[in-house]
């Protein structure tokens, strides 16, 4: 029995496209420890995002089992999985995926709408999260009034605000220039080191992977290699 935060056993995933069945993940076994900062790398179509989606509870495996914090999530209903995501996972996307009609503050507050917190408490929590990512002074700005780096920081604040078990990041620096990407990665590293957040990050960028504590490589749905990062 593993004491990993995330544990995958024999996880497979296949899609049916027309008459063809595409095997995306093949009998994957994986353990991710609490407090880990894991980079998932691999060529396009290797199954990185699919694996991330399954770990984040956005998708279900075709076979095998997945446990997070001891709880099997592959058997949860759609509604329970949504609740589980709200309680345990923070998501960061390549294109930030902020709601354009809401201010940074309101975007960060979004996950808290699903809690019983009062409006003033939600605001307070959102301000703390924005403060952590260094954007307290941009709280009233809408996403189109922010730079790419700032928008991604807001997205990270939104992912953090509910104090999730896991931070799941899909190419978080894919849309940013090198300098801004480094700022974001430093922020993630700090969240991992200072706040003990477990982070799983999909990236194409080897430099980005250097910020992680572990790197896993996927190819054609299989784990082919793993490496300890120096940092």
């Amino acid at each position, binding site marked *: 029995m593993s004491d990993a935060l995330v544990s995958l056993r024999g996880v497979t995933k296949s899609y049916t496209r027309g008459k063809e069945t595409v095997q995306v993940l093949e009998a994957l076994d994986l353990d991710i420890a609490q407090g880990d900062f894991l980079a998932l790398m691999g060529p396009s179509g290797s199954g990185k995002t699919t694996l991330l989606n399954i770990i984040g509870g956005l998708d279900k495996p075709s076979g095998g089992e997945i446990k997070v914090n001891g709880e099997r999530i592959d058997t949860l209903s759609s509604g329970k999985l949504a609740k589980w995501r709200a309680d345990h996972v923070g998501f960061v*996307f390549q294109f930030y995926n902020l709601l354009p009609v809401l201010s940074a503050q*309101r975007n960060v507050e979004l996950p808290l709408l699903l809690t019983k917190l009062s409006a003033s408490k939600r605001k307070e929590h959102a301000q703390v999260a924005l403060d952590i990512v260094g954007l307290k002074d941009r709280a009233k700005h809408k996403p189109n009034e922010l730079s790419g780096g700032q928008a991604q920081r807001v997205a990270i604040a939104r992912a953090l605000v509910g104090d999730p078990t896991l931070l799941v990041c899909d190419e978080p620096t894919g849309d940013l220039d090198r300098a801004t990407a480094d700022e974001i990665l430093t922020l993630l590293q700090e969240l991992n080191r200072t706040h003990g957040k477990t982070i799983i990050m999909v990236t194409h960028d080897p430099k980005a992977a250097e910020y992680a504590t572990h790197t896993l490589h996927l190819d054609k749905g299989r784990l082919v290699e793993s490496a300890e990062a120096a940092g």
Partner: protein
Amino acid sequence: MKFFPLIWASLWRKKARTLLTLLSIVVAFLLFGMLQGVNSAINRGVELANVDRLITINKLSLTEPLPISYLNQIRAVPGVEGVAYATWFGSYYQEPQQFVFGSPVDPELYLPLVPELEISDEAVNKLKQTRTGAVVGQALMDKYSWSVGDRIPIQSSIWTKSSDGTSNWEFDIVGTYTVPSDVNQEQGFLFNHTYFDEARAFGNGTVGWYLIRVGDPTQAAQVAQAVDALFANSPAETKTQSEKEFSQSFIKQFGDINFIVTAILGAVFFTLLFLTGNTMMQSVRERVPELAVLKTLGFTDSTVTVFVVIESLLLCLFAAVIGLGLSSLAFPAMKDVIGEASLPTDVIIAGLLAAILLALIIALIPAWRTLRLSIVDALAGR
């Protein structure tokens, strides 16, 4: 309530589009309020009709006269408690557009049959004593700032005078009356049939219709049959109806207003359904990634779907309230056309229910798509 800012902000994501959609719904509900309101005002006369009163008209048409000699024969029918007569005068003041309802009557016979009409004994006596006298509804007095003692010139679109061949009639206002149960009935005047019959160039010895009061309203149908049987196979056969039936058939002379209103509104709302439905679908289509993000953050499929439905409800109800509010403001402006009227509560309720139904139908397809939205596909842009 905590979700309201999110839903409201999503609704106004494309301000110009939402505003135009809102305006189209506002116009539809403005039309709804006005047409249904007018229809309701017209039908209110029917609803106020007395159950113990019958109207006898010429079987051929309301415009065909009946001999005045029928009076005593009708009076003799068992169950009849009182009979009076009146005639359509087709009158207007100064301009044909300024229609006023005038009717020559025998005050002694007519007034006891219309107790809803409140008039002083002094005014009744003066009317009886003054050949060219008229008692005028208080609303009509106010409308043209007439006073008791004024001599008013009235034109008739039907009746010419034998004395000069013109249709210019003059009446001396000897008193006023009120109808507290329906102020629209105050938009008319009553004058002496004797004067009318002597002065008119044609049709002497006839009346427009008879008004009958029956002792027992449950016997009204039998009395009506008995009256019509009296004049069967005569040159002027009669058709006797309850006051309510008469009012309905009178209104139908102008067309089936209910049908016209329903048809117009049906067409408007049918078009609106497609227009707004399409806009709503487009709006949801554009927001697929945002809806997927909400689901990603832990909002359940049903919660996000309810957001879309509430958005539709907000849009339609907000527009309906504005549209109905505007139509209620329009009623005072239409006072000259439809008389005293306001937007009836039942029309407001019907309007709001229509808005809810419209919103639910419009939201049906977008809500279904939202419910079925796969996060993974939506985020991948598939």
